[in-house]
């Protein structure tokens, strides 16, 4: 009862989405046809319905179909301290959505406090650190000509001048203009960037914009299939598919080539700006595993001067 009470308080505090399910009572609903599919991730467990211990169905009737993907091994996780987030695993084979299972997600990554100032700092950094302002105006020394005194100092009744390229003259040099390429390079603190990723992922999950998919294999290379799929499932206009490797399946690569607002990205390319630019973020299960592995390593390493815990609070 205590865990249930904690769940309700937590969900009220952070306004968690309907993706969140009570761990104690899980009712698994599946479609009429589920075809067994080979699943190659190291961390997911394919459990038979009979040996299933995590999913406790409180109804009297037995479930209709067997769950294919249930549970995930979460590292650096103490269930008594924090509550794991959960998300459905969907398929990409058909236009209609079919749930293949329910997986746990680490709360430090997918349940981090969404500190908007950190997300903002990350986006600003991404825009600025590689920006170069190329404005440059020539000074009087750099302008062609202007070495000779145009007319004598006295006697002519004209104003006194030393050079035709002084800033007073037309087509002369600019005295205090922009000078040379100006860079705005700086590096955001490492753990601020780590937490930026965690916060954005948490925001995406909480706002129902994070979808987990088993693989990126789609049946046809026609872009209309993907468009229909995105339309039917009410995914955002723009979708970002993330896989753990940078070599993508042929069909999805061809389909997304012509649709500019649906993009593919390897995991190492994931960033806060892209996650915010695209409405829906779709991760493969392999990508989720690798992502958690990387981020948890950085959040729990003890060889750094700045601990990651500094950015994990709900306030500065």
């Amino acid at each position, binding site marked *: 009862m205590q865990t249930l009470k904690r769940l309700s308080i937590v969900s009220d505090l952070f306004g968690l989405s309907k993706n969140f399910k009570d761990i104690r009572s899980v009712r698994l609903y599946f479609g009429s046809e589920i075809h067994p599919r080979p699943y190659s991730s190291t961390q997911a467990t394919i459990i038979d319905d009979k040996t299933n211990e995590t999913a406790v169905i409180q109804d009297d009737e037995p479930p209709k179909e067997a769950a294919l993907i249930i549970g995930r091994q979460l590292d650096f996780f103490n269930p008594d301290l924090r509550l794991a987030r959960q998300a459905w695993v969907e398929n990409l084979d058909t236009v209609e959505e079919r749930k293949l299972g329910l997986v746990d997600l680490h709360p430090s990554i997918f349940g981090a406090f969404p500190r908007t100032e950190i997300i903002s700092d990350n986006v600003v950094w*991404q825009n600025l*650190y*590689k920006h*170069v302002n190329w404005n440059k105006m020539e*000074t009087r*020394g*750099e302008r062609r000509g202007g070495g000779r005194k145009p007319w004598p100092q006295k006697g002519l009744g004209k104003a006194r001048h030393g050079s035709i390229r002084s800033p007073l003259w037309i087509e002369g040099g600019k005295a*205090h203009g922009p*000078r*040379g*390429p100006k*860079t*705005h*390079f*700086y590096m955001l603190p*490492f753990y601020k*960037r*780590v937490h930026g*990723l965690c916060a954005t992922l948490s925001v995406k999950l909480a706002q129902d914009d994070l979808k987990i998919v088993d693989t990126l294999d789609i049946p046809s290379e026609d872009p209309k299939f993907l468009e229909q799929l995105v339309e039917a499932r009410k995914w955002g206009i*723009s979708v970002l598919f993330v896989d753990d490797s940078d070599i993508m399946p042929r069909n999805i690569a061809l389909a997304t080539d012509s649709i*500019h*607002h649906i*993009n593919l*990205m390897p*995991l*190492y*390319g*994931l*960033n*806060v*700006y*892209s996650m915010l*630019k695209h409405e829906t973020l779709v991760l493969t299960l392999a990508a989720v595993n690798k*992502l958690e592995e*990387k*981020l948890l390593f*950085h959040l729990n390493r003890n060889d750094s001067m700045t601990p990651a815990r500094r950015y994990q609070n709900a306030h500065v």
Partner: protein
Amino acid sequence: MFSISKLVTGLSRVVHISPPPNTLLLETSIRLEASSLLVPSKGTVRYRYFEDKPKVLMRKYGYKDKMDFKGPLPRIPTGMPLPMPLYQPKKNWTEKKALFGQNDYIDILGDQEGLKPIMFQTHIPQWLKGFHGNEFQMLIRKHKMLGNRVASRPQEWHNLRKRIKYLYRFLNYNTKSFMDKKVLRR
């Protein structure tokens, strides 16, 4: 029933005359000889001259105004294009814009050790990658990193040396320190 035309003498055919405009008409009756039939007809009482006055006073009669005052801007159909480019909305999903920021977290999420996000910014020249400083610092850096350009770009190199010399003198003799207002303005 007998026709009226036979009754009215002196008329071979019935002529319909419309009364003049803006006249106040009064119905009168003409007694005919052959019968006691009353045929009402209308006659003028007075002419309402003020009705003929224009409601809006017309000025500059015959003058054609070349400026057409319809709409927010003058629209004279000459057939020539406007001296302004045709509006084209920004394309927000070009490849560059769609994948902006792609490898910025490669040191966190990448597999290889020692990768930095600044390594992937190919639009930045060699002497500016990962650099942030004022003009003087930038020129010194360029001078020491691109020394092999002296022979191939003599004018540029000459100007670079001149500028470095000027800035050294100005910043060290004309300003208090590197945090001086005159320096920060640059």
